[in-house]
């Protein structure tokens, strides 16, 4: 058994639960989701945290601890995560610069980037924007010094330990190494987000 997670207050309606790594975040989120009542409004995974928001004020800390330990037991038995394949092209405007800064040719970068097994760590920044974990440690360029005012929808991007596909056109500071035609987020679709936290993602060259 690992240490019990740290529970930090986040106002009077929510708590931030600090966990050891994103796997623990996914396990606890799945366990809480399975036994969630209507009183819990949001369960928001982060990289190493889970934010819980209650509709009518957070319960006392003892009740939260019970909820967490119960959810961790449920989570042990939960099924394998769903897997999804995304077809991508390595044709982004920052591909050459990122490859050079990491000491690879663009082709080597693409091969290394495709070889990783990714998992959606969490969604944030904008609707459906999935932070993919599990990237190659040799491919961790910092964010751009000057963010772009407009990144096109479908841009495949990397920054630090994360990879992502921009779901829609937005400002953005990540390095654009490629593109993907998949519709990542559509508010009229059910469910609206193609990628959700915990999902396994395989990139394949188009």
């Amino acid at each position, binding site marked *: 058994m690992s240490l019990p997670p740290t529970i930090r207050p986040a106002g009077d309606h929510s708590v*931030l639960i600090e966990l050891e790594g994103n796997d623990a975040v996914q396990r606890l989120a799945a366990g809480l989701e399975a036994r969630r009542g209507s009183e819990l409004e949001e369960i928001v995974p982060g990289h190493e945290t889970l934010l819980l928001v209650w509709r009518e004020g957070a319960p006392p800390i003892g009740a939260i601890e019970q909820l967490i330990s119960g959810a961790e037991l449920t989570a042990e038995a939960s099924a394998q995560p769903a897997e999804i394949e995304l077809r991508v092209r390595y044709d982004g405007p920052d591909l050459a610069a990122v490859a050079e800064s990491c000491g690879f040719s663009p082709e080597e970068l693409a091969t290394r980037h495709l070889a990783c097994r990714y998992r959606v760590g969490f969604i944030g920044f904008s609707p459906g924007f999935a932070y993919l974990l599990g990237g190659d440690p040799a491919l961790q360029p910092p964010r751009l010094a000057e963010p772009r005012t407009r990144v096109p929808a479908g841009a495949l991007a990397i920054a630090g330990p994360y990879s992502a596909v921009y779901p829609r056109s937005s400002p953005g500071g990540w390095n654009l190494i490629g593109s993907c035609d998949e519709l990542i987020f559509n508010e009229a679709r059910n469910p609206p987000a193609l990628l959700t936290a915990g999902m396994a993602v395989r990139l394949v060259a188009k």
Partner: protein
Amino acid sequence: MSVTIEVIKAGALTTVQDLGRPGFAHLGVPRSGAADRSSLKLANRLVGNAEGAAALECTLIGPSLRFDDEALIAITGAEISARLDGEEVALNSAVGVAAGALLELATTSTGLRSYIAVRGGIDAEPMMGSRSSDLLSGLGPAPLKAGQTIATEEPLGEVPAIGVAPVAPPVDIPLLQVVAGPRADWFADDALALLAASSWEVSSDSNRSGVRLVGPELPRLRHDQLHSEGMAHGAIQVPASGQPIILLADHPTTGGYPVIAVVAVADLDAAGQLRPGQRMRFAIN
């Protein structure tokens, strides 16, 4: 009967808002909805709508609206002068509007956001269960534009017998209660005391995503990068500048700046009324 309304002037920023789309933060979708929920609910109650019906949220400079049909309206929220065919109308009251009448809102004198509820509720295509305009994500109807026509839905239920609500007058320097954490330990020991002791000026950079404050720099203890984590409504995020930002209705669902404290839910509506240029204070709960 449905009411048709012509937008003569849109005002500084007028959007359609209801109580938002809760339950989608894990997909990166902000709750959105009225920045001052109790004022939205009150306006709806006054005209006999469900509390969460869609209404207009006006920002600072209100719109001018021509009612093509007879209607029942209520204006709540910020202190503002509102005229119906030139006659001043009361706030926080149900007001009958004759067909063809022109409603003109001036500029708020105290507070930032006014709500105009029309009996029946504003008709708009719901997206993920809400008609709210989320300006961060681009979900929901676009802000109102001059020349556009909007309409209400068919009203349901009775017109309430009481058409006036007592509302406490706004205060000059709002005091928002906050709960310390979740990342108060990322700041120097005196940062929380400084947060509570200072008078903060509301920056003109503020919007529906966040209220930016200007004041003394809140000193950080840790300067490493915080991994992105879920953000609560009312979270007081402190970027590298040391100048706090209170997250409002359209806030990003995750963020990488440490949160020193979070505004108590009871004071979130007051945060939604903070007006650029005014001063405000915090009290640690």
